[in-house]
C-alpha cells in the first residue's frame, strides 16, 4: 500500500525532486538576471567595444586605462567622500532620533510615523523636492540662507558647496532606515536593565556609554553595511539632482559608470567600471563582516 502522502518518487534525485522544484524558479531567475549579467559584465570588460559590438579582445586593457585615468581617481574620491560624509552625519543623528523615539512620550506612534516618512520617498522625488527647495531663484532654502547672512547662493552651482549639499540631501533620504533598525534594537533592551541603572544612580551619559551603546553596536554595524552599499552604488539621486555637475564636482563612481554606459555608450568601459564597483562592494562587505565577527567573539 502507498502511504497517503501523495506520490513518493524513488531514487536519490526523486527523493528531493520536490524541494528542487520549489527552489527552481528562484534559482533560474537569480542565475539569469543577476549572476549571468555580472559574469557577462566581466566578459564585456575585456573587450574594446563600439556600441554593443565587441571590436577587439584587449585583456585587461580597459582596467589599465581606467587606473591611469585621473578622472577615475577623482570619481573614487568623490564616492568615498559621499559615503563617509553621509555616514558620519546619519549614524549619530539616527541613534539620537531612535533614543528620542524610545522614550515614553505621548503620540509616540505619530512622531515615529512622521519621522520615518522620508523612507518611502523615492530618490527621484527626493531629488525633485530638494532641487526645488534649494532653487537659487525661488527656493525657501536659499531664502533661509539669505536671512542667515550667507547671501543668495546657488548651492549646486558652486563646486565647493555642491557635494556637501548633495550629502545633506542624501542624509534626509536615508536616515529613516537607520532609525528603524536602531529603534528595533533599542526596544530589545530589557526594562530591568534601565531600572537597575536608575537605582544605582548612574548618570545619563554613563547609561548611554555603558549600556545603550554596547547593546546597539552590532545593529549600528549592520546599518553601516547597508548604508555604505546604498550610498556607494547610488545613481538616481545624483543623476537627477546634479547630473554630476558643476564641472564634475559631484560625479561619483556609480554615476560615472552610468554615464559611460548610457550617455556615451562605451559599453566595455562601463562594464569595467561596473566590475570595479562590484569589487568595492565585496571589499566593504568583507571588512564589515570581519568587524561583526570580532564583536561576536568578545
Amino acid at each position, binding site marked *: 500500500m502507498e502511504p497517503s502522502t501523495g506520490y513518493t518518487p524513488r531514487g536519490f534525485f526523486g527523493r528531493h525532486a520536490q524541494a528542487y522544484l520549489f527552489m527552481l524558479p528562484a*534559482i533560474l531567475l*537569480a542565475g539569469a538576471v543577476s549572476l549571468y549579467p555580472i559574469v557577462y559584465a566581466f566578459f564585456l570588460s575585456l573587450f574594446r567595444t563600439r556600441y554593443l559590438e565587441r571590436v577587439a579582445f584587449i585583456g585587461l586593457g580597459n582596467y589599465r586605462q581606467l587606473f591611469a585615468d585621473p578622472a577615475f581617481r577623482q570619481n573614487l574620491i568623490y564616492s568615498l567622500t559621499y559615503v563617509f560624509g553621509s555616514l558620519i552625519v546619519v549614524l549619530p543623528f539616527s541613534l539620537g532620533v531612535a533614543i528620542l523615539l524610545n522614550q515614553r512620550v505621548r503620540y509616540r506612534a505619530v512622531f515615529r510615523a512622521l519621522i520615518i516618512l522620508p523612507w*518611502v520617498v*523615492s530618490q527621484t522625488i527626493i531629488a525633485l523636492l530638494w532641487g526645488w527647495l534649494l532653487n537659487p531663484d525661488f527656493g*525657501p532654502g536659499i531664502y533661509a540662507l539669505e536671512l542667515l547672512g550667507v547671501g543668495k547662493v546657488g548651492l549646486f552651482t558652486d563646486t565647493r558647496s555642491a557635494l556637501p549639499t548633495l550629502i545633506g540631501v542624501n542624509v534626509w533620504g536615508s536616515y529613516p532606515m537607520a532609525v528603524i533598525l536602531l529603534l528595533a534594537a533599542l526596544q530589545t533592551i530589557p526594562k530591568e536593565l534601565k531600572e537597575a541603572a536608575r537605582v544605582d544612580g548612574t548618570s545619563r551619559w554613563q547609561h548611554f556609554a555603558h549600556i545603550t551603546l554596547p547593546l546597539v553596536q552590532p545593529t549600528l554595524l549592520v546599518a553601516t553595511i547597508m548604508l555604505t552599499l546604498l550610498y556607494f552604488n547610488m545613481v538616481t539621486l545624483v543623476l537627477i539632482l546634479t547630473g554630476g555637475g558643476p564641472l564634475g564636482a559631484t560625479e561619483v563612481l556609480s554615476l560615472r559608470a552610468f554615464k559611460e554606459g548610457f550617455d556615451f555608450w562605451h559599453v566595455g568601459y562601463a562594464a569595467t567600471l561596473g566590475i570595479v564597483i562590484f569589487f568595492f562592494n565585496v571589499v566593504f562587505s568583507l571588512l564589515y563582516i570581519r568587524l561583526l565577527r570580532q564583536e561576536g567573539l568578545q
Partner: protein
Amino acid sequence: MTTKTLVYVLLVCVVVLAVVPLLWGLSTALKPKDEVVTYPPRWIPNPSTLRNFSVVLRETSMPRYFANSLLIGLCSVVLTLGIAAHAGYALARFWFPGKNVLAFGILATAMIPGISILVPLYALASKVKLYDGYSILVIVCTAWQVPTVMWMLKGFFETVPRELDESALIDGCTRWTAFYRVILPLARPGLAAAALLTFVFVWNDFLIAFTLTVSNSRRVVAVGLYQYISQYGIEWGELMAAVMLALLPVLGMFLALQRHFIGGLTAGAMKG
C-alpha cells in the same frame, strides 16, 4: 526646561525636518502660476488652486505612466511572492543536497549592485527582444526582489509549527496542497509585508525603467517625473502636483500599514 519637554522639542524639530520638503512641494502644487515664482517664497498658497493637478491629469501622459507603474508593480508583486514563497518554504522545511550553497548563492545575488549589471542587462534585453517591453521590467524587478523576500518568508515559515505540515500530510494532502492550503494562509502577515516592500520598490524604481525602456507608452511614473521638465518646460507647480500624485499611493500605504513595512525591513531587506 525639564528633560521631558526637551524630548518633545527635539522630536518636533526632527518632524519639521522630515516633512518640510514635502510640505513645500504640496504648497507649490496648490499655487497658481505667478504665485510659484515669488521671492521671498510664501508658504501658504493664496489663492490656492487645483489647476496644476487637473493639468497633470488631463493634459499630460502622467495618467498613462501611473497605469504602467501600477501594472508592473502588481505583476512584480505576484511573481515575486509566488517564486520567493516556494523557495522560502523549501528552505524552511526540506533538507536536500546543496541546500546551503543554493540558499546563500541566491541571497548573494542580492549583493550584486544594480549599476554593475545594467549595461549587460541592456545588452541581453536587446538580444532576446525584450527591450522596451513591460515584461523585462517585471522580470528584472522580480529577480532583484526575490532573494531578500525569499529570506524574509523563510523566517515566517519557520515560525509556523512543523506539526501543521505533518497533520496536513496525514490528512491526505500532498506537499504542494499542504503548502497552498495550510501553510501559505498562515504566513499572510509575512506575505503582506513582502508585497508592500516589493510594490514600493517597483513604484520607486527609476534606473531599471529608465535604461530598459524608451517609448513614451512604456514609461513609468519615476521616469515621467524626471522627463517632465524637459518635456513640458519648467512648470514647478505642475511638476510638484505630479510629484504629490506619485507620492500618494506609497505614502497612503505606508501610513495605513506601517507595522507591516517596519516588520519587513527589520526582517532583513538588503537591496536599496
